[in-house]
């Protein structure tokens, strides 16, 4: 037995994986537990008990929601005299029934704030200097005005956050709009943008179609590129309940994940070949007539085109491309076909590809063929990542859209100008008036051009301005809650950070971006309050909105994001317009008013019924909701679904219960039923795109119908169902732009879905690949396949920047970098990890960045377990990490976690953090070694897969 001691780390102790690995535990757990010399573990620096509960002092319970993932577990915080002293299980929450994963069980650490940024700081002459908020806002504002005057508003890159509340995320988007730029974005770009685009373009909305709880009634579950045991642990409670109820559980993943350990069937496939695998499944489905013909006839358009593509995916070809044997593909297809309804779940394993939108559409099409969408127990169950990435996608800072997926057209701007009650011309005047080359090759004014997304922001800094579809490069970047180590091309990221004139980081922790560059000046750190130090709504992956009550006041000098936005807007002179209908008290914009404004404008996705009052009522009555259906049984929320999952149609007064399962025709729309959305017109190639003889329960139109407009109401003779007031507002408008909600109300009164009743489409004629096809990854090791399945041609301007495909794929990197490199999550950490690595309860459990490598690959390289290795990517980025030899990954594939940061190419940057804020655990960011590659539709970064080589570090 080797003792494990790390002297140079804060309290180096046995970390979990090492603990398990070194113990020879494979034979029997207890032996290890009985013999491990825990006595030898080193103690941390004196850790006195922080904020212990005091006897005899009143304890208050405050209800919040975990901030670490989109499952949305309820948190009960115990507070004494404003100090967070304990956490209790929230048994009443129908989402977690009291449970947490390691992250959720640790959130009280936010209240300790040991490693938090405590006051605003500025980097001058290589030193961090404490400054006041006033000075910070003044200096930042002055610099912003300066670059605006010289280079226009698009010279600022403003990154918002999937960790902001709905209200804050919405204000981030509004802030960008009022500043006059679309150059704003958030984490969704790099986690599920391809899902949102692919799925919305298939059937209307790009979100998880059912809920975690709905897994209880699934008959089968297929996880592909998804590892809920680590990424969405409490989802596993529902998944395992489903399994105990008899569901067949399948995991398809390049890596034998902790989720796979619980599956009935595990299939390993080559990274980046999911389209081929899906078509392989469909090949068997069609071959055996397992498809749901009636469902396809009534509700699906374009399946014949798919049949043609699938025909070429014979079992042999599927095996050649994916590496999966025919019997396995067939078994998966048969299991799904014979155990319906079944749920298909994917996560970042399915999205982070340059053809990610093809992946996500292929998943949907398989589910359509099986008739699994719109049924309890079925679904395309996309588990989102960050706690509010769904909400920030819905109403937050997206570079390609205004809140509510309205897009960036003139209509969209005029809709929101009406909601905001500002002069559209004034708003227009905030933008660069010039026109630039758009994605479709014509010239468009800046306000209608999607901004540069966060995945490409470094190119906005580094590219030749002549190649940009905007006036100038980015000169200032402002990150309000985003981890830079999540972005690929580490060395170029560092260069971009160094080239900026000013960098502002507004975060509870300093983050990797604060330390990775060699800047000595022009960096501001603004301490942010966490979501436990403020309040507001948050949207879980299942589209439920939950209310967080404030647990404690902001600690130290931290400020909530919306306060910072207000102060900046005031400094920049547009606070009056931006907060016209939002009350501001002591510099804090009212969260309730902000949500009401979201309610007033977001008709497209039914973010209109979830008033603050209703959400608070749900929060207080969590115990009344059924844990399988999420429906309240009795009590003040009787008949409503927990968190009013969107779409929650109409005004709050209308009392819509929310939609627990999208496109479920077995319920009436008024009770949460739905049809597929008529989003793509009514006709294509002479075919009707409307549903054929199928409609939601109680619908008065017994067939498909287009989306509702005022004119349509008149034609149907339903116009007079509107009140006079509604008529005035609704005339000439449609279900998306009628601010009275009358059109939606009347449509629903007659049993109809406001957005129409259409077929889902398998062919997205507006996308580069109308029928999803397989294309080899840009960094493919299979040169033999690159020829048959090549990528796209390079594009001169796409989302304002040039984008390369063929010119990258042409180069054969696989000789020098033969290993396929993928990355993923650890249960203890989240995202870029700065927050969780600064949490001592979590840090203690996971102390080192490592790479999982198959024993064969390790032996080929003379690498022993737990040795230091260098991992180098084709972009030249190198990371020094520990080797973990394990059969979890197959030969030729290596895996690293992506949560580490604070090192750069072998150097621990500990001294570059402001004193006392360095995370307990630091390590190399895997993305220092990841490469170029972006989705053709959304600019998602292709991190899965890339290539690398590994060697022993001397």
């Amino acid at each position, binding site marked *: 037995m080797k003792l494990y001691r790390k002297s140079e780390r804060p309290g180096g102790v046995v970390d979990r994986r090492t603990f398990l690995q070194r113990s020879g535990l494979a034979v*029997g757990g*207890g032996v290890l537990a009985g*013999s491990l010399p825990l006595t030898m573990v080193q103690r941390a620096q004196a850790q006195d008990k922080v904020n212990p509960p005091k006897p005899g002092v009143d304890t208050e319970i405050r209800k919040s929601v975990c901030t670490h993932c989109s499952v949305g577990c309820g948190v009960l915080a115990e507070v004494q005299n404003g100090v967070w002293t304990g956490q209790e*299980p929230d048994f009443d929450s129908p989402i977690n029934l009291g449970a947490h994963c390691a992250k959720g069980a640790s959130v009280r650490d936010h209240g300790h704030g040991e490693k938090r940024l405590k006051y605003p700081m500025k980097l001058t002459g290589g030193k961090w200097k404490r400054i006041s908020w006033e000075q910070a806002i003044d200096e930042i504002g002055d610099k912003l005005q300066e670059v605006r005057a010289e280079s226009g508003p698009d010279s600022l890159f403003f990154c918002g956050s999937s960790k902001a509340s709905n209200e804050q995320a919405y204000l981030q988007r509004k802030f960008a709009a009022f500043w006059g730029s679309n150059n704003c974005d958030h984490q969704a770009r790099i986690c599920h943008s391809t899902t949102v685009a692919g799925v919305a373009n298939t059937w209307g909305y790009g979100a998880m179609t059912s809920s975690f709880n709905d897994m209880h009634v699934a008959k089968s579950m297929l996880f592909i590129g998804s590892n809920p045991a680590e990424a969405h642990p409490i989802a596993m409670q529902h998944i395992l*309940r489903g399994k105990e109820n008899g569901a067949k559980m399948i995991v398809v993943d390049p890596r034998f994940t902790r989720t796979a350990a619980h599956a009935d069937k595990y299939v390993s496939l080559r990274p980046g070949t999911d389209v081929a695998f899906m078509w392989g499944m469909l090949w068997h489905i069609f071959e055996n007539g397992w498809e749901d013909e009636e469902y396809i006839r009534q509700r699906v358009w374009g399946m014949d085109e798919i049949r043609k593509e699938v025909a070429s995916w014979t079992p042999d070809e599927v095996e050649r491309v994916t590496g999966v044997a025919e019997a396995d593909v067939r078994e998966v297809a048969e299991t799904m076909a014979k155990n319906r309804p079944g749920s298909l779940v994917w996560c970042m394993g399915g999205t982070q590809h340059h053809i990610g939108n093809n992946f996500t559409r292929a998943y949907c099409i398989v589910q359509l063929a099986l008739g699994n969408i719109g049924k309890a127990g079925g679904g395309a169950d996309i588990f989102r990542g960050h706690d509010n990435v769904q909400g920030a996608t819905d109403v937050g800072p997206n570079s390609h859209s205004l809140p509510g997926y309205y897009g960036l057209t003139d209509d969209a701007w005029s809709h929101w100008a009406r909601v905001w009650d500002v002069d559209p011309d004034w708003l227009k005047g905030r933008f660069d008036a010039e026109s630039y080359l758009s994605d479709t090759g014509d010239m468009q004014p800046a306000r209608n051009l999607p901004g540069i997304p966060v995945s490409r922001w470094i190119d906005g800094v580094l590219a030749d301005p002549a190649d940009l579809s905007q006036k100038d490069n980015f000169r200032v970047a402002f990150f309000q809650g985003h981890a830079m180590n999540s972005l690929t091309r580490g060395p170029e990221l560092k260069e971009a950070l160094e080239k900026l004139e000013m960098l502002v980081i507004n975060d509870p922790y300093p983050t990797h971006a604060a330390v990775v560059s060699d800047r000595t000046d022009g960096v501001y750190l603004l301490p942010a309050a966490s979501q436990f130090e403020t309040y507001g709504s948050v949207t879980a992956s299942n589209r439920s909105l939950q209310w967080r009550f404030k647990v404690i006041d902001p600690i130290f000098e931290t400020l909530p994001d919306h306060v910072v936005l207000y102060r900046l807007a005031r400094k920049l002179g547009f606070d009056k317009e931006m907060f016209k209908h939002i009350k501001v008290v002591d510099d804090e914009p009212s969260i309730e008013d902000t949500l009401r404004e979201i309610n007033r404008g977001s008709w497209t996705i039914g973010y209109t019924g979830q008033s603050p009052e209703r959400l608070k009522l749900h929060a207080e009555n969590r115990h009344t909701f059924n844990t399988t259906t999420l429906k309240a049984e009795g009590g003040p929320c009787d008949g409503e679904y927990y968190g009013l999952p969107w779409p929650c149609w109409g005004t709050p007064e209308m009392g819509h219960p929310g939609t627990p399962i999208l496109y479920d025709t077995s319920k009436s729309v008024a009770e949460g039923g739905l049809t597929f959305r008529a989003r793509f017109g009514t006709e294509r190639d002479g075919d009707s795109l409307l549903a054929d003889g199928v409609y939601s329960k109680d619908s008065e139109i017994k067939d498909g119908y287009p989306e509702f407009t005022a004119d349509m109401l008149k034609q149907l003779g339903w116009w007079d169902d509107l009140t006079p007031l509604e008529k005035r507002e609704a005339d000439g408008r449609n279900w998306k732009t009628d601010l009275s909600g009358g059109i939606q109300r009347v449509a629903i009164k007659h049993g109809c879905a406001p957005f129409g009743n259409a077929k889902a489409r398998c062919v997205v004629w507006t996308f580069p690949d109308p029928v999803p096809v397989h294309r080899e990854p840009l960094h493919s090791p299979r040169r033999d396949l690159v020829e048959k399945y090549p990528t796209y041609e390079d594009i001169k301007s796409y989302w304002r920047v040039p984008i390369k495909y063929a010119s990258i794929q042409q180069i054969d990197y696989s000789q020098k970098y033969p290993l396929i490199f993928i990355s993923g999550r650890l249960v203890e950490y989240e995202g870029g990890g700065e927050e969780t690595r600064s949490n001592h309860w979590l840090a203690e459990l996971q102390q080192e960045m490592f790479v999982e490598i198959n024993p064969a690959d390790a032996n080929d390289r003379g690498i022993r377990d737990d040795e230091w290795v260098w991992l180098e990517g084709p972009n030249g980025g190198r990371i020094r990490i520990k080797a973990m030899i394990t059969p979890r990954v197959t030969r030729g594939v290596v895996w690293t976690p992506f949560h580490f940061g604070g090192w750069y190419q072998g150097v621990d940057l500990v001294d570059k953090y402001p004193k006392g804020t360095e995370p307990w655990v630091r390590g190399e960011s895997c993305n220092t070694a990841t490469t170029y590659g972006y989705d053709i539709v959304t600019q998602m970064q292709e991190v899965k897969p890339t290539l690398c080589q590994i060697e022993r570090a001397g």
Partner: protein
Amino acid sequence: MAQLIRRAGAVLTVTLLLGGCYESPDVTLHEPGEYKGPDDPFLEKAADPEHQEQLQQRLARGQTDR
């Protein structure tokens, strides 16, 4: 010495048990001595039937699948 043997016995038992062998070898454990510390008022509380009832309800509420 006696104590040493006892300890070795305990470790051995464990190793076998958890190593997959469920046959208990015959090991005599020494009777624990009388507890020497102060009383724990908790003991009295724990015996209260009302308290027991409370714990039972708590279990049903928190640890079942509900």
